């Protein structure tokens, strides 16, 4: 059967080609094993002749850098933070899934795959879900061995807990700080190689351009954020593990510095961006409390194991939560989705929460939240058990809000959290640019239209430790003896001057609005137009607003200081400039996809408030190219082409997602 992608509803979009993701044909369960057998390898003595640049030091970046260095490759690792330990993988709380299936709750690899594929609303790759589950065993074993103190049962076996979208218990954890413990373990292994000398570490260094030679990625141009010096690092392959771009919405659960710049510059060189509009809004974030709030803090979804979400039955009920009797409460998730209840997947829980807030049932001083109540759990399990499970979350809430969750319900609201979208990669995690690999949240793999809780630490770890080392070695194998670009080659000097020009341009506008002001404005346009709910009307409006704002940015941005030394305003301005272009493509992608799926909820495509997919037309991954002059110091008109990668499911039965 030939695949014909549908026409685009978004104006000006060109239809591109049908992409081959290079997934091994045949049974997806054995695909990864077969692919590894095909991969070429390199003699250990020759590996040191290759240089790999790894950008980002979260779980995927640390893992890839450390594993490649352990194999003997020469690695350069870059992070914009002052230490590689601080990458935002550190903030993940709840846990990491693994298909170990030791208990008799009837978990299995197949069940893991079904949950992941179904959770992603059949917009992810089935064979990759198998790989994720298969490699999850080694991830747990490795991180356990290198120092992650996974929670244990009293008998000494690893403990697990349940997570949203799943009816078995397969989530491994270390209290509410799993991300921290995995990130620190991976960071330590990276530092081990730094000590040995196989990894050259570049902290406080930001990637600003890609070195392209003969159509392949051959290194990166970076800016030393301490000195302002721009320099080139030629390499035989480049790995981007630069995380998600949720900060494009201004308020998100991400770190202040998280940005899309490395990925976006690669995209402007031709690397496709997959599903850019697929963004997960996390149902359990702290609500906005002051106009100066710089981010929203996430309260781990693991709280939904024991917490019950509710709002007052009557809109505008101003009573304190303790004064509202049971009969006048609406446990809205338990009511709407009795099978999964408070553990319904994130997209569904977020929309249900927003529906309550929008209909006037919101609680708290700004009526912008719903309750997450631990009272019943404390009654059932005792305060000690609840404390042990969630102590750091409870402490964090006390610090942030000044109230005690052990006595009064937590107030939560949905906010931007994770980007399923990212650079398009094939099954080998290589983008359409040869030599440019992408791992972790920065790529679009595994999660389809919605990521299941505790699958992000897993996908980042699997990519870093157990996929990229194999795939990168295979790519490098035939390139022995090939010279890296010289520092005075045109590829390097052109990229270098592009970056310099941009810095100078940003410093020379001398406008009246700060980068933060532009960022906030952009975020609010995007939240309204391309947030939890999207429509033809909201998206077209947002596109027009974003284009105007972007034009204003280059005329009116205010950056003080110089290009030498630390200049955080300049850093911010460059990141916002990239967000401005990305935001337009996000809206175009959302407007183009005329269906609802997972986190992408188009108001035109619903049935009684539930998302309606259109598998006949849209069972494919969108991979976008942006056509514009390669000039990072102006505001070119962007033209978009949508390529399509058809998706096939052979072992998992395609069905409508139903959590009722």
């Amino acid at each position: 059967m030939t695949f014909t992608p549908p026409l685009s509803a978004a104006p000006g979009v060109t239809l591109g080609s049908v992409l081959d993701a290079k997934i091994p044909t045949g049974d997806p369960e054995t695909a990864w094993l077969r692919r590894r057998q095909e991969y070429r390898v390199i003699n250990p003595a020759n590996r040191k002749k290759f240089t790999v640049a790894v950008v980002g030091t979260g779980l995927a970046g640390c893992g890839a850098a450390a594993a490649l260095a352990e194999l003997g490759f020469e690695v350069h690792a870059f992070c914009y933070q002052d230490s590689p330990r601080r990458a935002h993988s550190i903030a993940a709380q709840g846990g990491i899934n693994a298909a170990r299936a030791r208990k008799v709750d009837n978990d299995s690899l197949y069940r893991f795959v079904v949950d992941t594929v179904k959770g992603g609303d059949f917009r992810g790759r089935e064979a990759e879900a198998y790989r994720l589950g298969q490699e999850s065993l080694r991830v747990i074993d490795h991180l356990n061995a290198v120092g992650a103190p996974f929670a244990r049962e009293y008998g000494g076996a690893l403990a697990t807990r349940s997570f949203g979208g799943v009816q078995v218990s397969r989530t491994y954890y270390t209290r509410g700080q799993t991300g921290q413990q995995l990130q620190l373990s991976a960071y330590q292994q990276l530092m081990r190689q730094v000590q040995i000398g196989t990894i050259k570490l570049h902290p406080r260094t930001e990637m600003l351009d890609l070195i392209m030679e003969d159509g392949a990625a051959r290194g990166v141009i970076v800016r030393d954020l301490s000195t302002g010096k721009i320099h080139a690092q030629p390499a035989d392959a480049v790995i981007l593990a630069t995380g998600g771009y949720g900060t494009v919405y201004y308020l998100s659960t991400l770190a202040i510095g998280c940005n899309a710049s490395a990925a976006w510059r690669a995209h402007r060189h031709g690397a496709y961006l997959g599903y850019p509009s697929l963004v997960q809004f996390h149902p359990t974030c702290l609500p906005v409390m002051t106009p100066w709030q710089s981010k929203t803090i996430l309260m781990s979804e693991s709280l939904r194991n024991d917490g019950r979400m509710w709002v007052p039955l009557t809109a505008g009920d101003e009573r304190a939560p303790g004064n509202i009797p049971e009969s006048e409460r609406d446990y809205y998730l338990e009511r709407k989705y009795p099978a999964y209840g408070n553990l319904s997947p994130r997209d569904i829980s977020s929309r249900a929460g927003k529906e309550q807030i929008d209909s006037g049932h919101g609680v708290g001083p700004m009526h912008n939240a719903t309750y997450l109540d631990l009272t019943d759990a404390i009654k059932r399990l005792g305060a000690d058990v609840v404390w042990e499970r969630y102590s750091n979350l409870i402490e964090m809430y006390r610090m942030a809000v000044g109230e005690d969750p052990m006595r009064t319900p937590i107030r939560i609201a949905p906010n931007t959290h994770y980007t399923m979208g990212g650079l398009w990669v094939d099954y080998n995690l290589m983008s359409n640019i040869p030599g440019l690999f992408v791992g972790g949240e920065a790529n679009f793999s595994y999660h389809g239209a919605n990521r299941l809780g505790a699958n992000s630490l897993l996908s980042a770890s699997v990519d870093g430790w157990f996929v990229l080392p194999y795939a990168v070695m295979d790519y490098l194998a035939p390139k022995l003896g090939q010279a890296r670009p010289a520092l005075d080659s045109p590829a390097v000097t052109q990229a270098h001057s592009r970056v310099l020009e941009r810095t100078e341009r940003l410093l020379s506008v001398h406008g009246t609005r700060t980068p933060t002001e532009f960022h906030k404005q952009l975020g609010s346009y995007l939240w309204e137009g391309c947030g939890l709910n999207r429509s033809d009307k909201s998206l077209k409006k947002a596109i027009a607003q974003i284009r105007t704002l972007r034009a204003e940015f280059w005329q009116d941005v205010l950056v003080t200081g110089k290009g030498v030394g630390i200049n955080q305003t300049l850093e911010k301005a460059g990141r916002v400039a990239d967000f401005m272009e990305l935001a337009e493509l996000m809206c175009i992608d959302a407007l183009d996809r005329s269906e609802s799926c997972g986190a992408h909820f188009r108001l035109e495509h619903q049935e009684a408030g539930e998302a309606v997919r259109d598998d006949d037309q849209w069972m494919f991954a969108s991979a976008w190219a942006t056509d514009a002059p390669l000039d990072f110091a102006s505001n070119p008109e962007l033209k978009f082409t949508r390529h399509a990668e058809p998706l096939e499911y052979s072992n998992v039965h395609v069905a409508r997602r139903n959590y009722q």
Partner: protein
Amino acid sequence: MKLTLQIWRQAGDTDSGHYETFEVDQLDAGMSILEMLDRLNEQLLHEGKEAIAYDSECRESICGTCGINVNGRPHGPQPHVTSCMQRLRSFHDGATVRIEPLRAGAFPVKKDLVTDRGGLDRIIAAGGTVSLMAGTAPDSDAISVGHDQVERALDFAACIGCGACVSACPNGAAVLFTGAKITHLTMLPIPAIERNERATYMVAAMEDEFGPCSLYGECVLVCPQNVPLSAIGSLNKERLRSLFHPRI
């Protein structure tokens, strides 16, 4: 509310630096100290001045990036709370607040409130690691570990590497930081295999750049993760133990 801020300004690592005074008003008691600096920076930009440089990342007290001294106290007036989570409700209206970088001999100031804490990374690189390659680990259920043992290990593993302990110490010691890592790894069966080498190398790296410990205990009073003081006893035990198991 309104505050008078005395903030350390230093143009670069070779500059001598000075305090600059700012008046900020219309503050909200629920704002964090960093959000107050965000606001002040917006004001400075509009006046055509350079923003105050300071580090922060996750703003939820887990990454360890932020760290400023507030009225002489690392992170701020609330004990065991990172700068990003310190709220203005700790100050009374009209107060004068002095903000400076995390002061420590081993943390040179790079600009304004930004310091270089690379010394902490070098301690970890020296031995806060496990010599085990990807893919070679045994089944994690093959070696059982008791529930309480792991929970205790996590009390030490929780360190966020912010460096507040170093700044609080009159000697500028990093013993709580180093002890936390040594204790954490010693409590887990596989990492414990290298405990002697680890103690030897980490302590040597620590002594290279940081001061000695006189057991003042100031470090634990500011630690955002409540790392126990016993980390120091544990470090001393491990370094002594390593003397009897020398690595030649």
